[in-house]
């Protein structure tokens, strides 16, 4: 009886959760072994592992590997922004005792509140070669002698992680700060009395306290970097071949919209997503288990 009431309370949300988060995995499995062209296709045949093989054959292999390469480079640079923005900001905020502390926090967290699409559009607004506001400002101040062209693929490599890192800076800062704030004040006072330098405190007190947050940030970065989509669409990625990162490629192949002709089938798109995301999910799961151990 008690179990029944439990189920009654759980049901409304759990049915939706299973149907919209877990079921997609299950219905995707048969599709991987079929030659389903698109969502309308009725003439479906079993093709075994052909879809996997075809990922490494023309015409898919070239855009596929290109997209993977772009995304992996993005992952590496995006991950380094966790350490370039998040940790320094958290450490600085931790030391700050001024009354602007809350204002600073609010401002740093602000980009996380707005949409990824907006972030991508802001990037274009700031660094378009002829009309970018930031370009014009930096040119006027004499900091640049020629404008940064954000449409140039060599610039996007850097610009995208810079602005995505900026978006998540507040989120990561809060994550690390929550770790730092759980350090008992006595511990720090004792170390100061003992004459521990700032670097020593960093090494033996602050970093161990932030460790579980760092693992968490790693998980978010791993999953988020391979799913970067909104920011790219804001930069016009659905129309420009140079911005075909993995999520955009998946969208193109799976839903057939966008520039150029359709290069693959729906089944191939789903195969592609499983081939790339499943190892990531396993890795993230392992990291998550490790993080839980660190926390206790």
């Amino acid at each position: 009886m008690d179990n029944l009431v439990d189920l009654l309370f759980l049901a409304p949300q759990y049915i939706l959760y299973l149907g919209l988060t877990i079921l997609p995995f299950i219905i995707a499995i048969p599709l991987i072994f079929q030659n389903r062209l698109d969502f309308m296709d009725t003439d479906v045949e079993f093709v075994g592992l052909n879809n996997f093989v075809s990922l490494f054959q023309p015409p898919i292999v070239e855009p596929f590997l290109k997209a993977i390469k772009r995304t992996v480079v993005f992952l590496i640079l995006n991950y380094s922004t966790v350490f370039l923005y998040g940790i320094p900001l958290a450490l600085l905020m931790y030391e700050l005792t001024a009354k602007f502390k809350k204002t600073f926090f609010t401002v740093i967290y602000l980009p996380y509140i707005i949409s990824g699409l907006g972030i991508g559009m802001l990037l274009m607004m700031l660094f378009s070669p002829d009309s970018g506001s930031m370009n014009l400002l930096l040119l006027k101040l004499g900091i640049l002698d020629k404008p940064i062209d954000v449409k140039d693929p060599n610039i996007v490599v850097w610009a995208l992680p810079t602005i995505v890192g900026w978006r998540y800076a507040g989120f990561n800062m809060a994550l690390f700060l929550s770790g730092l704030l759980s350090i008992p004040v006595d511990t720090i006072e004792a170390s100061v009395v003992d004459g521990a330098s700032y670097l020593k405190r960093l090494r033996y007190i602050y970093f161990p306290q932030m460790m579980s947050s760092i693992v968490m940030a790693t998980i978010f970065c791993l999953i988020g970097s391979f799913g970067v989509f909104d920011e790219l669409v804001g930069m016009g990625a659905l129309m420009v071949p140079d911005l075909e990162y993995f999520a955009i490629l998946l969208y193109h192949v799976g839903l057939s919209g966008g520039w150029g002709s359709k290069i693959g089938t729906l089944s191939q798109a789903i195969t592609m997503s499983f081939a790339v995301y499943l190892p990531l999910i396993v890795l993230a799961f392992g990291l998550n288990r490790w993080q839980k151990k660190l926390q206790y």
Partner: protein
Amino acid sequence: MSASLRPKPETGAFPSAPSALDRNRKRKLAKIAIGFVLFVYCVVTILPFYFLFIRSFVPTRESTKLHMWIPEIEGASLDAGFGNMCAYYNLNPDQFKQEMGIDDYVSPGNTFRDISKKYNIPEEKILNYLNPFVRFNGWYVIIKNKIFYHSLTATVLLTIASIFIGALFSIATGSVLAGFRKKWHMFVYNSYLVQMIIPSIMIMLPLYLIINKYLNLYDNYLAILMLNVKGGALSTMVFTSYIATIPSALRESVDIDGGNRFHYFFRIILPLSKVPFATYVAITIPTFWNDFLNGILFLSPEKYTLVAFVNSLQGYYASNFQAIFSGLCISLIPIVLLYMVFQNLFVKSALSGAVKG
């Protein structure tokens, strides 16, 4: 985040240390340097938003000039061509003709002076209509766009509905799972946690199949609502951990009074869940408001939610940057205002470490 969160080490408490004074001064300098670095970072962070606001008032033809403030724009001229006005300022010809009471074909080559003479419309009336269109072209184009109202209303209503229904569902989930009274509760809880590591792009295609084909919910806001309230790692963790702290004596007292589980849920748990509810709202409201992928996957362009609508502006007004930036600016204003008003709540939720579980 007051100073009490981290009381500063009392350096003055150790006067015996030989260099206490020296160290004190060093510390003060370090504090100033820290404040300065953070201040610069904050200025750089604000700057894009400031530029966005200014750019929403900068005419597209002036966008290659640096504007640090809203430029003064001259009003409309009657010598402007009707066709040009439609092409460069995205004047809606049908709306214009309707306002002016013209039900005739108007050649794009006509100037507004011609139109005034031909249809006997006072010049004042035309100018009054055109002036705001030219001065605040971006904002005006968006405000005159019918889909904008639709998407704004839909997004506001969807966000509110998602918050309350999602919270109710999650509280129900939390009320069962809190304390893990049975073994299978742990299983349900862990299955919710898995959501955190599932990329939404990965399940996009099968989800498209489920919602648009199996459930036949294409172009139905119910699909978006369902996706918003389906629950996940965060909502489950927040409510379960909080409800676990409600003393079991309360539950026993309900039992003694002869109340059942529903009494306990509606009389005790719901009223006591204000704190996790606030955290839930602060964490989920940006995701509901900013949802883009679900909008473009499951809705038709006429029914787009706000962010998807802003994206479609890049197609509608490809050559009118001002309109695109105005659309983006308008879509940010509600969420940023909300953030400013409830900043304490947002800061507290961000620092609660809820995402770490």
